[in-house]
């Protein structure tokens, strides 16, 4: 038996147009808590999905060795058989079922094909005790808090005789007390011989429990070191430590008068009625500036702008002012008419109608101006669409090409074309360069600069720090639903942004 419970060797994984992982190596010793650290998009989740079999053997290159044996997982079941369990950030439980049903979902205790509920209950009580949860196994998940739900996920993992437990951002929704409780529990499990891979943005937590730390950056392993050798500053440098190259066409802008102002914006979670997602946020955007919005996953960036656009949150309060006039309406069609457009981060889910043509996708938000008495002037439509196809350099044989056949970069340009056609005064771009190649990224940056010259305000939400630093005229940093930093680009640095993004403590 080797000293490592897990070795991932030279893992490379490509998505169309993007290399998500490039020769990544990860070695985890038996019985340690191993932290996996990296910026958003560094490849942590992709790596864990490969390990758990979500991306099956054959879709990546490299070797996975568990307890000295090479593995070819083709599904989550395979990795679970080897004692590997992963708990995702988004908890995967069926809320209408009770604790016992959830814990044994997929691995029910049966005698002759009939579920033995008595035995299941006894077992459930046992594992609940191990995670120190004092609740009835009959309780429905929906009645529990997020912290308790998290512990039930851990209990579920224990019931499967897990040897290697992977937690992906387990504390992003937890309170401080719940976090401490979870961390103590993980230490206890360590004593019992359970190995743990801990993925988190919260560096203080990492230093509380981790024995060793592996840092990923841009899909590559930077280093693996013992936790004692590092401190938070060193870790931040390792996470971001790269020179800003000429990947960004920065142009000097001279911001003019304020175009849009948001006052006291508060949004509650649509599912948890008393949880504030956005907490009393106010900010302004000036003519001719690119406003960068930075922050870690779950900081509320997307929720903030989705709610301004009128399509998120059940209980939204606050004021939107555009060119000195307050906008009272709260639905996308009216907001678009007022001159605010929002490009969603989820290109396929919220942006494109994949089975339809480029033409139909680009014109869908502007049909009012292309039609008379509801009849679309097709010639006008075709000309307008062709203008954007050539302006944005969308590579396609025809405007009738279905969007699903385009590359990621071209798809993104189609969505961008859709919003440019609405001739917005304020254009909100949520992760405008996610999942597209470097060349297409550069083109999109250039388009942003062109828009600024035309007098459009651009708000760019991005999880990629270099992009935010490279393109923004001003950066707003968000943390837990609040704006914690407002930095002009001349004063901005990666360390500063990370500092505010982690709460500025």
């Amino acid at each position, binding site marked *: 038996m080797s000293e490592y419970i897990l070795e991932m060797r030279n893992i490379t994984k490509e998505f169309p147009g993007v290399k998500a992982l490039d020769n990544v190596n990860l070695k985890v010793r038996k019985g340690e808590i191993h932290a996996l650290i990296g910026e958003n998009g560094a490849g942590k989740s992709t790596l864990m999905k490969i390990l758990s079999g979500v991306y099956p053997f054959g879709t990546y290159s490299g070797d996975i060795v568990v307890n000295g044996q090479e593995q070819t997982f083709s599904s989550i079941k395979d990795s679970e058989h080897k004692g590997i369990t992963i708990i995702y950030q988004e908890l995967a439980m069926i809320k209408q079922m009770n604790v016992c049903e959830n814990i044994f979902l997929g691995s029910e205790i049966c005698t002759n094909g009939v579920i033995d509920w008595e035995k299941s209950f006894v077992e459930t009580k046992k594992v609940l005790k191990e995670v120190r949860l004092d609740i009835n196994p009959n309780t429905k998940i929906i009645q529990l808090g997020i912290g308790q739900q998290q512990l039930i996920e851990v209990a579920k993992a224990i019931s499967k005789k897990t040897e290697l437990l992977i937690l992906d951002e387990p504390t992003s929704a937890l309170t401080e007390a719940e976090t401490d409780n979870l961390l103590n529990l993980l230490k206890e499990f360590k004593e019992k011989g359970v190995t743990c891979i801990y993925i988190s943005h919260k560096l203080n937590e990492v230093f509380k429990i981790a024995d060793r730390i592996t840092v990923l950056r841009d899909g590559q392993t930077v280093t693996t070191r013992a936790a004692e050798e590092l401190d938070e500053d060193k870790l931040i440098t390792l996470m971001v430590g790269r020179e800003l190259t000429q990947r960004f066409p920065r142009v000097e802008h001279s911001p003019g008068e304020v175009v849009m102002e948001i006052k006291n914006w508060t949004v509650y979670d649509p599912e948890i009625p008393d949880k504030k997602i956005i907490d009393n946020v106010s900010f302004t955007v000036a003519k001719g500036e690119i406003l960068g919005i930075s922050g870690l996953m779950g900081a509320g960036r997307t929720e903030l702008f989705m709610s301004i656009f009128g399509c998120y949150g059940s209980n939204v309060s606050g004021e939107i002012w555009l060119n000195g006039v307050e906008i009272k309406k709260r639905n*996308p069609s009216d907001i678009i008419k007022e001159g605010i457009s*929002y490009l*969603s981060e989820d290109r396929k*889910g*919220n942006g494109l*109608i994949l089975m339809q043509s480029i033409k*139909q996708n680009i*014109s869908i938000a502007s049909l009012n101006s292309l039609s008379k008495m509801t009849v679309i002037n097709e*010639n006008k439509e075709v000309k307008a669409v062709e203008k954007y196809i050539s302006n944005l350099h969308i590579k396609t044989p025809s405007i009738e090409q279905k969007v699903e056949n385009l590359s990621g970069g071209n798809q993104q340009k189609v969505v961008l074309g*859709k919003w440019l056609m609405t001739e917005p005064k304020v254009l909100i771009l949520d992760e405008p360069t996610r999942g597209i190649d470097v060349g297409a990224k550069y083109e999109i940056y250039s388009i942003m600069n062109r828009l600024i010259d035309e007098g459009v305000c651009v708000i760019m939400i991005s999880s990629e720090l270099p992009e935010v630093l490279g393109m923004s005229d001003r950066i707003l940093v968000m943390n837990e639903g609040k704006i914690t930093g407002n930095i002009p680009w001349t004063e901005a640095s990666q360390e500063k942004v990370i500092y505010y993004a982690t709460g500025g403590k």
Partner: protein
Amino acid sequence: MNKRGETINSGEAIRNKGSFSQLISNSIKQNIRQYTMIIALLSIWIIFALLTKGIFLTSRNLSNLFLQMVTIGFLACGMVLVIVATHIDLSVGSVAGTLGAVSAVLMTKAGLNPLLTIVLTLGCGILVGCWHGFWISYRGVPAFIVTLASMTAFKGITLAITKGATIGEFPLAFKALGQGYVPKLFFKNANFNDTSIIIGVIFIILFIIIDLKKRNARIKHELEVLSVPLQTLRIVLISVVIAIPCMVMISYRGIPYAVLLLIGVVVIFTFMTNKTKFGRYVYAIGGNKQAARLSGVNIKRINFFIFVLMGLLTALASIVFTGRLNAATTSAGNLFELDAIAACYIGGTSSTGGVGTIFGAIIGALVMASLDNGMSLMNVEIMYQYIIKGAILLFAVWIDFVTNKKA
């Protein structure tokens, strides 16, 4: 040639470098679904022609077939929109039965004239559509549930109106809508229907004018067009396709009013789905509801109108059907919803929404009507008819699933 003309010609030259055969193969690739549907329809016809020793293909039988498919054709036109927007309407059969009974009572009991009856019946159809639309769009109840409720409820309402009896014998004008043919205009004694010939010729001329106008508009906007020989070929082919069914009907008793009405509806709905904001939005909602919402589409309003249109078409279907039977019965409209839904799926409407054409649904309706008609000619027992129709629906949706997966 002026300057503009030259640029177009050069553009055309470049585009035509893709050879003729390439053009054909592209056209087949793009319209593979429509071609497979038409091939399926033709093969069903050939099979029936063989099994019935040619009776199936007589002009008399085909004329009847067209008349029989009109009811399902109307329903299928509306159902396409419903299914494309990822809803379903299970109530059209029951509602059609009720509306038929309403029109019967209005004429026989209340003594209204046919025109007023038709207007009132259409109004009732719209009201039913509003009722469904209200619950589905503005109260968020799934269409499946809302229309399932109506399916039962309207069966009851039909019984209440007819009191379990058959109400019959309508004025000639009303009957004509369901079973009448356009009258002969000039040659009263000829053994062919001259009006139908005129109508057929008008259709072909209209088509040619519209197609050429479209071509000119595209040239004006400097967009690509077919080359002159290809354009001519296109006109000839489509003229022939229009002429053949016209000839069939002309050599029997002429074009039925009901078929004319259906053609009108098909033209209007095709236009609506392709050329209007409403149509675009329906497909956008079906394709990606969230993206449509974020693009400023008022989803509730569009869904509401889809069901209003469905109600209107259900009323039309019920009028034609009641007129054809010359009676309103308690069982009228039975299983119409299944035929209409099947017609859509057979016609290539995607069960996951976002894809489907009026033309396809009409072909689907023809397939369903052909199955009914052909199996009746062969004296197939009704139990086998149901089983075969069910099997064909299953097969059609499976084909749709497989081709979708490949694409």
